[in-house]
């Protein structure tokens, strides 16, 4: 079969389509977005009525998938690593309910924080939930693992977590569609209709069942095609290498032959027998893993006595950030390579708001409104508008997690910082801002919430916003007084008018909502180009 040139994300999506999913659920988040987009643009998915529209947040996505699994069908849920925090409640409980139709949860980690606020490692979530984890090392493996994962999920009736990193998600390589394309499952109720009822008495039984299966998961890991023990003559060192880090190891051996025993990990829980074999054979173990030193910590133990384990914890590799071939070379005791130094004149070119972006006008108006007050009252959120923290705007003072702008403004106002302002985007508002707004309304908090409505989920590339056309009604429904819901057109020519409205609402001792509404400039451009192309 001809090779397809696919991103890691796209290989996963193609794998899911070929494995017979009936639906994919997700909220956009770099670097996971392209998985769902691939399904959305697939003719096969469209012809076969595979659900692929965006969910409001990762929690609703995870729960919808659980419902699809309940009904007997295969489903995939995709998110970036911090999205798994949002979906953690249903995710961890889904391990207790177990699956009916196969479920795979894909979480894309971002070591080095290329476009994230932390570099948490999703493998910890797999460990908490006691579910199997698959970690592909390359695009072909990502494709193959999806089939394997759905089989595993249906065999043990358990959700399977796939952990990828930015580098795999956004790297392209040739992929062969090896597996037979499967039909979707028929609608089929769970054989025990109390399986999904997690009342304590029932949950206790389900949990015992999961613990028993977990022992089986370890045995499965020992014989998994994705955990390979490759022997080597030099036993002074054994190397355990996880997921994509395997590529960096191999890059350091031109003939692709490592003199030491190598255990390549692609499936968790860790394969106990294989690890014991390495510990018995080798004097020390080097652990190479992208993300947190989770395997290393496990092998080393708290006191680090006994088995000699090297890796990120003892400085053999850096404690944080993405790995690369050079870091691994140094860890192997090989010479490092380096080209020419970066000339001193090279300055940073940080990302910035696009020329013509509506957020620019919103920020200039807001900053002028606040200019006679002490600086530091604007709590913001996750999206393009977070760039308003940078020069020349310096208009916002926080960015923590989806929805935190409104609740942090409320908390600060509770503490006496009045007026306090929240700045949140339309899609982020429906993702996780609505509940916080209800808190503020119920407490009559003196805050002004600016919902920057550009009609799209801009930061991740312009996906549909679930908030579209609904924001005023949501605010009214949550109890914001209609006279304090103000809609602005963020344009230079309305600057003075907009400042006047902001001043009025800032003076109001209750919850007010200001909605600067103008379409994202990139979205307009794309819309016009699409229109032109279809003519």
């Amino acid at each position, binding site marked *: 079969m001809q*090779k397809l*040139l696919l991103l890691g994300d796209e290989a996963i999506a193609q794998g899911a389509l070929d494995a017979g999913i009936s639906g994919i659920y997700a909220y956009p988040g*770099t*670097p996971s977005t392209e998985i769902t987009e691939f399904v959305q643009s697939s003719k096969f998915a469209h012809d076969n009525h595979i659900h692929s529209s965006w969910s409001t947040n990762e929690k609703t996505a995870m729960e919808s998938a659980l419902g699809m699994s309940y009904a007997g069908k295969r489903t995939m849920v995709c998110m970036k690593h911090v999205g798994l925090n949002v979906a953690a409640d249903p995710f961890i409980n889904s391990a207790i309910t177990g699956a009916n139709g196969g479920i795979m949860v894909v979480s894309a980690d971002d070591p080095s924080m*290329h*476009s994230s606020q932390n570099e948490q490692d999703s493998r910890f979530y797999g460990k908490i939930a006691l579910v199997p984890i698959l970690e592909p090392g390359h695009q072909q493996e990502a494709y193959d693992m999806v089939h394997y994962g759905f089989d595993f999920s249906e065999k043990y009736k358990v959700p399977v977590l796939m952990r990828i990193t930015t*580098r*795999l998600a*956004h*790297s*392209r*390589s*040739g992929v062969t569609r090896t597996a037979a394309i499967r039909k979707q499952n028929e609608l089929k109720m769970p054989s025990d209709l109390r399986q999904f009822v997690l009342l304590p008495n029932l949950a206790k039984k389900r949990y015992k069942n999961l613990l028993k299966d977990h022992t089986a998961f370890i045995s499965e890991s020992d014989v998994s095609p994705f955990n390979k023990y490759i022997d080597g003559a030099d036993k002074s060192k054994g190397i355990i290498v996880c997921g*994509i880090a395997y*590529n*960096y*190891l*191999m*890059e350091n051996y031109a003939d*692709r032959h490592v003199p030491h025993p190598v255990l390549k990990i692609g499936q968790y829980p860790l394969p106990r027998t294989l690890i014991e074999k390495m510990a018995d054979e080798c004097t020390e173990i080097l652990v190479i893993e992208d993300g947190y030193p989770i395997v290393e910590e496990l092998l080393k133990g708290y006191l680090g006595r006994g088995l000699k384990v090297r890796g990120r914890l003892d400085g053999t590799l850096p404690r944080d950030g993405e790995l*690369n*071939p*050079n870091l691994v*070379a140094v860890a192997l005791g090989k010479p*490092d*390579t*380096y*080209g*020419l*130094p*970066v*000339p001193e*004149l*090279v*300055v*940073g*070119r*940080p*990302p*910035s*708001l*696009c020329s013509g972006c509506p957020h620019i006008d919103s920020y200039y108006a807001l900053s002028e409104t606040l200019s006679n007050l002490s600086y530091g009252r604007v709590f913001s959120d996750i999206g*393009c508008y977070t*760039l308003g923290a940078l*020069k020349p705007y310096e208009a916002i003072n926080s960015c923590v997690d989806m929805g935190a702008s409104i609740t942090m403004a409320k908390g600060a106002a509770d503490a006496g910082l009045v007026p306090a302002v929240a700045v949140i985007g339309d899609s982020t508002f429906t993702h996780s801002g609505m509940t916080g707004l209800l808190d503020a309304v119920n407490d009559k908090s003196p805050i002004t919430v600016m919902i920057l409505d550009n009609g799209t989920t801009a*930061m*991740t*590339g312009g996906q549909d916003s679930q908030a579209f056309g609904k924001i005023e009604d949501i605010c009214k429904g949550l109890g914001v007084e209609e006279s304090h819901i103000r809609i602005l057109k963020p344009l230079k020519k309305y600057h003075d008018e907009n400042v006047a409205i902001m001043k009025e609402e800032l003076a109001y001792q209750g919850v007010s909502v200001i909605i600067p509404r103008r379409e994202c400039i990139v979205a307009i451009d794309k819309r016009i180009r699409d229109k032109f192309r279809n003519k």
Partner: protein
Amino acid sequence: MKKDIILAGVGGQGIISIAAIIGYAALGQDMYLKQSEVHGMSQRGGDVMSNLRISHQEIASDLIPFGQADMILSIEPLESLRYLPYLSGEGWVITNTKPFNNIPNYPDLEKIMAEIEKVPHHIAIDADAIAKEAGSSKAANIVILGAASPFLGMAYEKIEDAIRFTFRKKGDKVIELNLNALKAGRDFANNHM
């Protein structure tokens, strides 16, 4: 044959298109390919880079090691310097000379050019002007690709085919324009090596 290429530019300048064209040409010759790109934040006028690796042997790492790139292909002069630590001793810098100035502290262009001149193997080309002559300044990235084409280790016709494939939905006129841009870039490189 193995080529490790760093593609550099500013978000929106078309480095992903270059990668796609080289990628298509490579796959058409049964070569292996890995291409790692940056998405997300960097699209908003920030610096972007992509690691492109093509080889007749299977490729291990998605990332090119420091000091081992055969080429830095840049659509913007300042950006060509940012990735010099990746360049091997024999490697080439092929860069546009037309600056993309979207930052308040953009360095003096003459000083940038002086730094480019210091790289032992380099080709500096006003790709925007040449693209304009070829029919559209939008094809500056293709001019750069043309300038790199003598070093790619693949038949020129394969790159032409890849351009025809990439722009197939845009009509013959756009294909013609891009083929002209490619040739103009190649001619420039051949005359300035």
